[in-house]
């Protein structure tokens, strides 16, 4: 974990003091509702359906045990005993009172946490690979670079009021697990002539106008990263549209100018500042890196533990969990373990205070007290000794945190939806629950294999439905909830043939295609089931995944099967009228 120095600590404390004073002015009528709105949003505070919602940043998904215990404390003292992990490496509390928020933020500051820029039209929490720092396929350690970006973006005086929100994602590994192709800026680590740097993608994003980012610069050397970001943000700040919030994201600017002209404008600005004071120095990188407390691994462990093999032969449940929830680690004898927050019947990403405390303990018992938060809304125990996997599994299983479904259909990514969010057109959580229930046979879930199912309650796409292999979008038609299905979306790995590998990584995202008219809520599990039947019929082997079949055959066979199914026909007539 990165350990704050005096400056880091002072900044978050001064930010808390500032927000306390702003809240005070607001409550005393000296700051209008309108003026206060943006200020509170930039401190993570929304006014939601039931109460304010506080979104706390977990910068680049890195979390340590004492921070998780503090989140549990916040959940108990100011919320209803639970929290919700979002799809952007943040945690959300749905029930705090506005008056209490300054105190909550002050408490969080004591464990080096904050809610700065978790909302509003500013540079948001920078996200990365949920195996950052422990993945075996890393080119660079993205934690260090994300911290450098965190510092640069935090309270940036020039970019506090952008045309719209701005999200940066960093991938340090050869497999992009950070979905760099669907962020305002996506950075993919690369090496060129022995120099480390980043490929820069700009203008990707989901929401109303889903689009994959454009390659703006194939290589920016590490020392130029911040000035290049600064130049990019400056062009966007000056020329991004401010007249229409639906056209205000940087993707529209890149599209309107064309990627070539946009890149040229960025380059002009960059030339003027690239050798200025914000150029990254080796000493600075070293300083940031040294502020991290890196785990002290035991380098004498063996990779294969006979005990674990024995246990897995005896216990199919454990064996399944080993296959889906345990991941390779860069150090021999260790593994990363995904703690599934996708148990059937629990809203995806929800976690109780008791579970948080227990996980904090486990992260210390089985590792070095470090965890990660994934954009798939799960937690990761970063450094588990392989020989302890069985006892860890027993503990997790007791807490309902060992659902062996990572990478599978029931590991649903979902926004909170209409039950909580005032933007939503439709509910999400009950739909996710119904799908999980429909697919409650684990053997069948295994047979289906790797599949990302993502669900959003409105076009804002917080559930990333566009990049789900199957995506579900809640829409409002004449005051009723309907759900549109897309297939073929993915966060990485598309178009990987015949292109220079280094350049396709970030561009490997693809936006799913709508299969046809929407469905009623209660039909969704059957529609998904139908899609799966089609897939199983068409795949050429177990190794061909759902997404591969869609890529090979297109959406037509799926569409045909769904819409010619008499069971699903009734709503098609209804929605055909509504869709017209």
């Amino acid at each position, binding site marked *: 974990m990165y350990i704050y120095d*005096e*400056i880091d600590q*002072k*900044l978050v404390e*001064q*930010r808390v*003091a*500032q927000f306390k004073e*702003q809240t005070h002015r607001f409550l005393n009528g*000296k700051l209008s509702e309108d*003026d206060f709105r*943006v*200020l509170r949003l930039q401190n993570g505070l929304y006014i939601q359906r039931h109460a304010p919602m506080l979104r706390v940043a977990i910068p680049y998904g890195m979390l340590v045990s004492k921070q998780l215990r503090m989140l549990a404390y916040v959940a108990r003292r100011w919320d209803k005993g639970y929290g919700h992990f979002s799809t952007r490496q943040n945690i959300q509390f749905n029930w705090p009172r506005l008056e209490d928020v300054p105190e909550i933020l002050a408490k969080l500051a004591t464990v080096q946490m904050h809610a700065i820029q978790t909302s509003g*039209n500013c540079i948001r929490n920078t996200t990365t690979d949920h195996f950052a720092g422990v993945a075996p396929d890393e080119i660079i350690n993205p934690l260090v670079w994300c911290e450098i970006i965190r*510092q*640069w973006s*935090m*309270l*940036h*005086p*020039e*970019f*506090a*009021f*952008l*045309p719209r929100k701005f999200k940066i994602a960093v991938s340090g590994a050869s497999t992009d697990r950070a979905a760099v192709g669907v962020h305002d800026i996506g950075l993919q680590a690369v090496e060129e002539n022995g120099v480390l740097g980043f490929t820069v993608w700009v203008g990707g994003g989901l929401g109303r106008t889903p689009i994959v980012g454009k390659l703006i610069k194939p290589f920016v050397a590490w020392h130029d990263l911040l000035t290049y970001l600064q130049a990019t943000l*400056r062009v966007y*700040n*000056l020329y991004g549209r*401010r007249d229409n919030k639906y056209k205000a994201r940087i993707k529209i600017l890149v599209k309107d100018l064309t990627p070539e002209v946009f890149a040229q404008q960025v380059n002009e600005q960059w030339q*003027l*500042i690239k050798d*200025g*004071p*914000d150029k990254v120095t080796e000493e600075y990188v070293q300083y940031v890196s040294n502020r991290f407390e890196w785990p002290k691994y035991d380098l004498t462990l063996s990779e294969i533990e006979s005990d674990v093999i024995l246990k897995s032969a005896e216990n199919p449940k454990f064996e399944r969990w080993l296959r889906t929830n345990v991941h390779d680690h860069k150090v021999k004898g260790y593994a990363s373990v995904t703690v599934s927050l996708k148990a059937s019947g629990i809203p995806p990403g929800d976690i109780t205070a008791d579970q948080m405390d227990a996980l904090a303990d486990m992260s210390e018992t089985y590792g070095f007290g470090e965890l990660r938060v994934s954009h798939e809304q799960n937690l990761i125990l970063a450094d588990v000794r392989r020989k302890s996997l069985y006892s860890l599994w027993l503990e997790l299983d007791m807490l309902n945190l060992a659902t062996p479904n990572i990478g599978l259909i029931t590991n649903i990514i979902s926004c909170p939806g209409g039950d909580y969010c005032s933007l939503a057109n439709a509910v999400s959580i009950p739909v996710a629950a119904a799908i999980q229930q429909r697919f409650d046979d684990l053997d069948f879930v295994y047979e289906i294999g790797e599949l990302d199912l993502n669900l959003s309650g409105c076009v804002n796409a917080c559930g990333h439905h566009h990049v789900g292999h199957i995506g579900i979008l809640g829409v409002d038609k004449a005051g009723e909830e309907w759900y549109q299905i897309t297939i073929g979306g993915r966060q990485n790995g598309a178009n990987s043939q015949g292109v220079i590998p280094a350049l396709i990584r970030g561009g490997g995202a693809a936006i799913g295609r709508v299969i046809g008219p929407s469905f009623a809520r209660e039909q969704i599990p059957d529609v998904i089931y139908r899609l799966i039947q089609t897939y199983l019929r068409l795949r050429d082997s177990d190794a061909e995944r759902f997404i591969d079949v869609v890529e090979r055959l297109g959406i037509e066979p799926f569409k045909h099967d769904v819409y010619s199914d008499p069971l699903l026909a009734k709503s098609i007539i209804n929605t055909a009228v509504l869709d017209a």
Partner: protein
Amino acid sequence: MLNDSLKLIRNGRLEIDAWRLFDADSSALPPDENYWMVKLETWKSHREQLSLRKFPVAILVPSDADSTDIIFKHGSDANLEKIAFIAIDFPSYTDGRGFSLAQILRKQYGWKGELRAMGDVLIDIIHYLARCGFDSFLIKEGHDAELALEAFETFTVHYQRSYPQPTKVTT
């Protein structure tokens, strides 16, 4: 109350703002007397004439000004020596273009004179404004200018090296 008219922060003190915006169409010019501010468009079409005045005008730059415009260009013949100060308008405090315009004016054109923030200037953006190069601030109606004076020290540390820590008093 007398204090209510002290809305301008300049040189670390509160002052009364005496400047008026000359709002007629750009073909007319204000009389040669003190405290006239003209729009950027007006100044651009009458640069020669305006530079001959006994009482220099100030220029009001709109937030949607083109940053490639003459006044932002280093080495241009913008002839800014003959103006009192440059003001950048914030139609809403969330319109962040003025922050970048200020940076370009300071760092690229090299404007050393007074740079004023006008419009929806809240206490809460003073710190950012000052770091981006503004050195005078006309505080929005209904906001306590005394409190705004304290905003320079809201943060005493920062990360971004090319944007200095603000000080109330500028030289």
